[in-house]
């Protein structure tokens, strides 16, 4: 089972909204679609993305619960080779990245 972590992204949310809008799609079918999405996005991120980002800022809060880290950082700079993005506040949600891929529900 792949992480359902990526459902709360632009891609994931738009898929969920679309599934909600189409009444011909039963809830069970919608769930299957989302599970398929989880697999696809996990695979895609692992295989198709090859870039590196650095960031630094100040840590406001941290939480570690159920093997999930949640951070809130302030005044953060995200630096990539190409460009720089600054934000005043960012929330980072991170699941365990070990290869066994625990089921996080």
């Amino acid at each position, binding site marked *: 089972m792949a992480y359902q972590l990526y459902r709360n992204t632009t891609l994931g949310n738009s898929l969920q909204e679309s599934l909600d809008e189409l009444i011909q799609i039963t809830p069970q079918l919608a769930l299957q679609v989302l599970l398929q999405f989880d697999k696809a996005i996990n695979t895609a991120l692992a295989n198709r993305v090859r870039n590196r980002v*650095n960031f630094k800022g100040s840590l406001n809060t941290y939480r570690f619960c159920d093997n999930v880290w949640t951070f809130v950082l302030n005044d953060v700079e995200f630096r990539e080779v190409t460009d720089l993005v600054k934000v005043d506040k960012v929330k980072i949600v991170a699941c365990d990245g070990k290869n066994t891929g625990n089921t996080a529900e």
Partner: protein
Amino acid sequence: MASSANSNPVPKLYRSVIEDVINEVRELFLDEGVDEQVLMELKTLWENKLMQSKAVEGFHTEEQAALQAAAQQQAQQSQQVTQQTQSQQVLLPQQQQVTNWQSTRPNVTSAPQQQVIVQDPKILQHMSATGMSAAATAATLALPTGVSPYQQLITSQGNVSQNVYLKTADGQILQVVRAANGAQYIIQPQQQMVLQQQVLPQMQPGGVQAPVIQQVRPITQVLTPLQGGLPQQTGVIIQPQQIVLTGNKVQQNTQVMQMAGQAGQMQQVQQVQQVQQAQGGAAPGAPQQQQAQQMTQPQPPMMLQVDGAGDTSSDEDEEEEEEEYDEDEDEDKDKDGGEDGQVEEEPLNSEDDVSDEEDQELFDTENVVVCQYDKIHRSKNKWKFHLKDGIMNLNGRDYVFSKAVGDAEW
């Protein structure tokens, strides 16, 4: 593709994910007995939402590119009903997502012409239904709530010089053309020209006749076809109000009269504007409306307006403040700015709270990073993050990474 180092990998990634998901899910759909058409609809909805979110750049499909090209061609043509129904179907999701008219403004002004066309007939059908179903006065009373958002929409549309197509309840397609002077004309056979001109001499506000006459015409053109069979009622509506408003200050309100053919007080102007909008629902002279409202604001506060430049409450407060503090030493007079600040500070002590809201950013989005962690390390209050496979939404835009390394101090 040689220079792909600088290109954004996000659209390609998203597109590949969508394709993978749709293909994998096709079997599931067939097993459920759901038609392939629904699958295509899901894909279209999904892609449309991604486009609308503006989180991804350069997210175009061939279908949408063709659709936009076709829509632009259709928009250049005149008076076709089919284009509206088609574009309505395509753009319905956009409208469904929009609950507040104000939020449509950025979409309307920056969107291609097709969106403007779609929203107008919907509004017009709604407005014309409400306007034509009641008598003049009833329509006037029934309108206030329904009109203001439409005004705002008109405002937004008025800022954009586009060919606006309006569809009446009769199913007629009218083309609203903006002239150089800002007045808008609807291309339709003219009726009631005589009626309006007969009314004009009665107004005679003094030296303003010429512009009034010229600018009342578009209104007749606007009103007439859109009423769809209630010409006499419109005459009845306008005349008494015009007569009532005669004698008020007009010179400042020539532009108001453009809209209503009338001068003076805010309520009546608004009522007339509402009536016209109910009957016509046209988008004539959005800037005129703005100017009208702005022009009428400085007038003597006989009406109910309590905002804008005509606000007198601040004056009253200042007087009260001065009265209270005059009893104190003269130093207080020197601190007029401070006095206002002190009076205002009391209710504003809530600023002492540290919690900051989204006003920090230009966007409402909370910047979120969803990823997996390889290693999280801490030394005293120095934290190091080793993350991987993440999707970031920063300042409204999407980014991805395969690895991320970060430092933060707690």
